[in-house]
């Protein structure tokens, strides 16, 4: 008879709150439930506010993707008004948002993801002492370098926008100020220094050499070609990840979504990865079949969520967010909604972007062995190699004191949407304005796509699906679940449940102080 247990797991290092509950049958995940445990009420707080207030308040939704929310908020207002900002304003916005991505990819990769390789679960592996030396929290060699280099490259956002996180320097019609030539030189130096460090210490080779890694075979050859490749942070991580089988974990549904991002100015030498007008192409793919994005196909299902928005899934322009707070019982189990594209659960983020852009290496890895935590995480770790040349080109194309703002005519009534590529993937803001005030504000975050619950048809959320089949050696230390869940770069801190045979067997008792 199969041995079935249920466990709940506290997965931190994901920025926010999430309860994960899984059912293990003979040590393998056979069912999973992922529930958001926090409701902050941002969308409803926006209603009644001035149309521009989203530029200040929505960045505060996320301290890591703050510039992405600002970009989505300003894009929604410009869509509402049919406003096109000057090309140099687009360059500045793109540079700032891409620098935030650099920060995200490195901090997530080596502060929040790789730390699990230094977990005692892997103490018998030959790589373990080296993983500890590199990835131990607050102490590892790579951890310390990533802290230093990410904060320095973020200075670019501060030069352009005043501070990171939480600036509001993008406004309808452009950005609030044009940097002078001295400021631009500083930005270029900061990016140059980051690139050098990334090449030498993270990638272990030049960006140009990396561009020639175009297949799974190329990747193997590259790893063996030079000790620099194998011992760089990515090479070492890759060898560890293969040793523990991350290439066989975390597949998911195999659906990919991108809203596209980074509009390319007409007069720029930068080329969109898919040849289109945005650097990151938009699209939806099921397997390797890529289709054009149809925005009307997006809807949020709340069958498993603690909201009372009505029975049918709603397009976000028609969405409500009406909390319906009951206890932790019954069919509803999450404060996250379940976004669907044409009824399908989908993943977004670097892997999806590389599917849309037909990245040769990622496409070949997917064709060879299907999606996995390894491929998803590899896509994120090497994304800076895709972004850095575009950042450099845009900065080089800018001249000091360029025209970066044009006063817009913002209508006092109408609808708008801002669909952008955030570090973690597709981010959308949908707004409705009447008499200059917001009457509706709906947001779907990348984490919503990844960490949402089941829908009315019982289709699992993306992370739930990805967990199925994951072996867990020690239910008391289920680090394998962390490898899968964190490969989505959730914006949540997962919390603790430990349940067995339907009974929780471990609780923490905190009485009130006597």
């Amino acid at each position, binding site marked *: 008879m199969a041995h079935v247990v249920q466990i709940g797991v506290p997965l*931190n*290092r994901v920025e926010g*709150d999430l309860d994960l509950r899984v059912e293990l049958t003979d040590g393998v995940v056979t069912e999973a439930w992922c529930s958001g*445990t*926090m*409701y*902050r*009420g941002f969308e*409803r*707080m926006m209603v009644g506010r*001035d149309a521009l*207030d989203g*530029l*200040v*308040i929505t960045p*505060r939704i*996320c*301290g*890591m993707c703050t510039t992405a929310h600002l970009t989505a908020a300003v894009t929604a207002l410009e869509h509402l008004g049919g406003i096109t900002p000057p090309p140099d304003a687009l360059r500045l916005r793109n540079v700032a948002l891409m620098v935030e991505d650099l920060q995200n990819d490195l901090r997530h990769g080596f502060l*929040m993801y790789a*730390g699990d390789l230094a977990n*005692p679960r892997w103490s018998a592996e030959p790589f373990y002492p080296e993983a500890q030396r590199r990835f*131990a*929290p*607050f102490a590892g060699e790579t951890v310390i370098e990533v802290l230093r280099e990410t*904060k320095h490259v*973020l*200075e670019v*956002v*501060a*030069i352009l*926008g*005043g*501070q990171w*996180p*939480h600036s*509001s*320097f993008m406004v309808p*019609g*452009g950005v*609030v*100020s044009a940097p*002078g030539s001295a400021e631009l030189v500083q930005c270029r130096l900061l990016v140059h220094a980051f690139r050098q460090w990334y090449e030498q210490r993270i990638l272990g080779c030049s960006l140009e050499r990396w561009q020639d890694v175009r297949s799974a075979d190329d990747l193997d050859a590259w790893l063996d070609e030079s000790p620099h490749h194998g011992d760089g942070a990515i090479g070492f991580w890759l060898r560890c990840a293969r040793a523990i089988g991350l290439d066989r974990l975390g597949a998911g549904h195999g659906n990919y979504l991108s809203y596209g991002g980074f509009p390319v100015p007409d007069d720029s030498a930068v080329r969109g990865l898919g040849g289109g007008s945005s650097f990151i192409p938009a699209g939806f793919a099921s397997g390797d079949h890529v289709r054009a994005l149809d925005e009307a196909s997006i809807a949020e299902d709340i069958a498993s969520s603690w909201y009372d928005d009505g029975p049918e899934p709603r397009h976000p322009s028609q969405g409500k967010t009406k909390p319906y*707070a009951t206890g*932790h019982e019954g069919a509803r189990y999450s404060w996250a909604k379940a976004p669907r594209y044409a009824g399908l659960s989908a993943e977004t983020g670097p892997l999806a972007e590389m599917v849309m852009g037909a990245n040769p290496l990622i496409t070949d890895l997917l064709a060879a062995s299907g999606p996995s935590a390894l491929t998803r995480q590899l896509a994120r770790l090497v994304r800076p190699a895709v972004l850095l040349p575009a950042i450099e080109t845009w900065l080089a194309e800018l001249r000091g004191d360029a025209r970066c*703002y044009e*006063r817009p005519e913002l209508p006092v009534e109408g609808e708008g949407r801002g669909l952008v590529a955030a570090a973690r993937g597709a981010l959308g803001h949908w707004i409705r304005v009447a008499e200059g005030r917001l009457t509706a504000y709906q947001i779907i975050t990348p984490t919503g796509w990844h960490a949402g619950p089941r829908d009315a048809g019982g289709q699992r959320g993306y992370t739930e699906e990805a967990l199925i089949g994951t072996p867990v050696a020690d239910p*008391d230390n*289920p680090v394998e679940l962390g490898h899968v869940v964190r490969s989505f770069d959730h914006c949540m*801190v997962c*919390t*603790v*449940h*430990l349940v067995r045979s339907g009974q*929780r067997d471990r609780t*923490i008792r*905190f*009485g*009130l*102080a006597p």
Partner: protein
Amino acid sequence: MATTLYWAQCGSCGGDSMAWLCLESPDVVELLDLLDIEVLWHPSLSNQSARDHLALLGSIAANEQPLDILVVEGAVLRGPGGTGMFDTFDGRPKKDLIGELARRARHVVAAGTCASFGGASGEAEVEASGLQFVREEQGGFLGPAFRSGSGRPVVNLPGCPVHPQVLAGTLAALCQGEELALGPYQAPATWYGMLVHQGCVRNEYHEYRVEDADFGTRGCMFFHLGCRGPLAFGPCNKLLWNRRSSKTRVGVPCMGCTMPDFPRDHPLFDTPAMADIPLELPAGVDRAHYLAYKGMAAAAAPDRLLQRQTRL
């Protein structure tokens, strides 16, 4: 013996943690080393297993593991209806965990405006509360009489996010047993006894009342664009952000994110005004004198400012 620190996140965006990682000279790792701080737990960085985290909480609760400094990031979410179920931990209201940890800690630090005053989370629906304030009103989640083990009230470090150097300086003072004088709203006077306006590179434009009503130029943003620099307490233009700049320097109005009413209800990019004079004047300034002074200052404004020639 090392000073122990537990970092808790409630209704938060994680931005105070992200800003904290940008600390410079010393950086975060160097600072922890210099001050001999042992981080028992940080939700974004620690890699202990679930089991070990639970055991840690258990031993703090049992007074077996001393807790010297509790840093709280984010508002305590008390809704709906006071149950705390909008934000849960281990199936229980997170607020209960925060209450317990606060009662065990020698010092309690509110990192950021949400933990200090409730902030951007919004009071009405989620019943967001600061640790000892709800907006301007003293009390908050822990109540006005709360004192941590050291006898101090909560040390409030407002800011959205809190400036990393302010947090670093506070930790240093607490570790080294220095006096840390608290001013209004229980915020250390060292950093909050000054205004964001101080050090703003637009000060000369402000002085001569050379105002802008739209983005993209060099004038002062206090009179029309909602800038609260002359009212907001904080060191943004002294310490600067990410070593480089500040919002007002690049032309983003100060939204008063250190203030207990942040974000205020009035349109954020607009200055509430009467007869073209802001309703809220620079801190401590008398209206009649201000009118006379600004009238004369505007008349004396030099062309280089009127034509926005003076660079920032």
